[in-house]
């Protein structure tokens, strides 16, 4: 089945799933309120702020290769090992080699979408290495054998009751519908994992060019423990995560927290610039940073789409998107869901299989209006649609239909006959019932026809 057909089939099921909708509404209810409150409280000029943030990221895109080199040089000076990966396969090879070099049997991981992108867990498990997700939401989806539902809130679609059943089965937790008790069960489950794991794997929210450092944002403390306890710390980072200066975090940490979760700052914002230093009492002996391309340089070569490389993965566009709220995160079948996923997936993977996502938007612009780095998300969706048409990656039916539309619309009488044809013979046309029900019975006379007869009879008076 084509990706588009699969999307259509699944969205038809989930769009009418009231239980799913209810869970999402509940999860999102307070998000917007919290975000607005935080933005009002913390910033005087949100619009100026996001323009500044966009300008910083655009500066990075102007100096991207130099900054990557600077980053590499600085962090290498402090003993970290930087590895470059052109694609997911190469990143997996790097990780395989690291695992065998350090004879890893147990890996603890903190939340990282880029490791989802390279399907790291599948790789490690197939190599007989146990990998445990430490972020609560990620742990839940891992125990379920699912993929993250949302880039910030991976288990948004799970109710307390479902999680309770899951924990009873997988962790032997007594039944409870108390979120705190469930959280404590996960905490207890992971305590010993942190101190016994051979390798800790994290992502990076930012790469800092001037310091040669990575920055990790989180609330639970699991990333701190993941990069604080095991002897080996592996960072997998999309190479677009760059910021020019450590000082830019004073802007980017607050906007990430505000847009992501409606917080002023998340509980832990950490900067790591290497493995344990000689004057330090603990920390990993070895640190690797894998810089992942995987389509990013290809996207960079597209002057419009490269704007999406500003993205800081805050999830605000998902939360604002009415389509996301209707179909949920899993229907997209992508690593990155929602508007940003629909913008970048066709570029990171391929246009032909993924262009349908660019059409799965009403272009309402809610995403663009909330993006903290001012990405013109719905504009880029439009651009993807144009590109898909240009590359003939769209489907043939629509090419034909649009030609017909253009032919009919260029001339008054052809348009009128189009309507008449549909009125008389529409029932014969192969139009799905669902679409028929979205269009009312067409009038016998168009506005123009009625106007002509009214103007004739009253010659200019109020019709």
């Amino acid at each position, binding site marked *: 089945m084509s990706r588009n057909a699969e999307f259509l089939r699944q969205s038809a099921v989930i769009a009418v799933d009231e239980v799913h909708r209810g869970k999402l509404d509940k999860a999102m209810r307070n998000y917007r309120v919290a975000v607005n409150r935080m933005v009002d409280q913390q910033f005087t000029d949100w619009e100026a702020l996001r323009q500044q943030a966009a300008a910083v990221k655009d500066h990075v895109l102007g100096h991207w290769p130099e900054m990557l080199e600077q980053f590499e040089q600085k962090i290498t000076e402090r003993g970290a090992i930087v590895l470059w990966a052109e694609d997911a396969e190469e990143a997996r090879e790097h990780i395989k080699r690291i695992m065998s070099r350090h004879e890893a049997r147990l890996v603890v991981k903190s939340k990282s979408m880029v490791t989802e992108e390279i399907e790291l867990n599948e790789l490690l498990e197939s190599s007989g290495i146990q990998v445990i997700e430490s972020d609560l939401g990620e742990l839940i989806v891992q125990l379920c054998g699912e993929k993250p539902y949302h880039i910030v809130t991976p288990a948004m679609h799970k109710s307390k009751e479902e999680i309770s059943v899951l924990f009873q089965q997988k962790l032997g937790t007594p039944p409870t519908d108390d979120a705190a008790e469930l959280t404590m069960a996960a905490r207890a489950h992971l305590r010993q994992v*942190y101190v016994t794991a051979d390798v800790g794997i994290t992502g990076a929210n930012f790469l800092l060019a001037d310091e040669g450092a990575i920055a990790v944002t989180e609330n*639970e403390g699991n990333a*701190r423990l993941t990069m*604080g306890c095991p002897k080996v710390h592996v960072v997998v980072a999309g190479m677009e995560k760059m910021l020019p200066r450590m000082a830019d975090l004073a802007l980017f940490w607050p906007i990430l927290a505000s847009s992501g979760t409606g917080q002023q700052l998340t509980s832990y914002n950490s900067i790591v610039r290497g493995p344990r230093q000689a004057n*330090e009492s603990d920390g990993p002996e070895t640190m690797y940073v894998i810089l992942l391309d995987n389509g990013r340089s*290809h996207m960079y070569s597209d002057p419009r789409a490269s704007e999406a490389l500003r993205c800081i993965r805050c999830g605000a566009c998902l939360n604002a998107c009415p389509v996301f709220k209707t179909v949920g995160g899993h229907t997209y079948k992508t690593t990155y869901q929602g508007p940003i996923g629909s913008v970048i997936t066709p570029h990171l993977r391929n246009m032909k299989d993924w262009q349908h996502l660019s059409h799965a938007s009403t272009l309402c612009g809610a995403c663009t209006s909330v993006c903290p780095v001012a990405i013109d998300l719905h504009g880029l969706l439009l651009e993807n649609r144009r590109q898909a048409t240009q590359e003939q990656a769209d489907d043939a039916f629509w090419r034909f239909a649009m030609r017909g539309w253009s032919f009919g619309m260029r001339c008054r009488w052809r348009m009128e006959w189009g309507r008449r044809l549909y009125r008389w013979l529409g029932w014969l046309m192969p139009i799905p019932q669902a679409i028929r029900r979205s269009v009312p019975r067409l009038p016998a006379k168009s506005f123009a026809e009625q106007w002509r007869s009214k103007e004739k009879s009253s010659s200019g008076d109020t019709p």
Partner: protein
Amino acid sequence: MSTSRERILSRLRQAQPAVHPPLPPLHRDDVFADLPPRESWCEAFCTRLRALHGEVFRVADEAAAATCLAALVDPLNSCLRQRHPLIDRLVAAGSIAEMKSCRIYEDLLPGSVEMADFEAGITVADWLIARTGSIVVRATGAGGRRMSVLPPLHIVVATEAQVVGSLEEALAQLREEGEPWSMASVITGPSRTADIEKILVLGAHGPKRLAVILLPASTE
């Protein structure tokens, strides 16, 4: 040999735009809400941290700090502390070492598994941030990477002289720091999660409680 590194960088160079915006200046007062005046920074820090479910104890002197520390660890069975002159003095004055299993973190083996069982970690901090109620720690000075995050109670001993206004200021100070630190963390409240139905739960993996004992600026 053409490596992935070279291939990636050359692709980027080929696509690099000819013109790009200059680096915006760092000064961003125009977009952030006003900072409170300097004299109320300590108060602002306390208010903000308490709003985040953190605990703050403002004490008049070291004796009061020692009493406060003793009261905090009293219900516990064990604690860990960083080796630091101020903490040494408070532990001695509060007779904590005698009443508790109170180990010095630096004396434990780095890979020690028992780490996970200690009930509290006592550390100093580098800076406190007024605007956000945050505590900045570094791996060189706060019992390494783990002590401020592994035990369920994190006790921070700090002085009012360490309070800075904003995150921007703390980052500027951090950049000035000559000592080769490998990790710094801006801690803003206790560990939290809302991954289950967006219900706030404290103490997901890091500390459930974060307590700051704030001494006067004159403390050494």
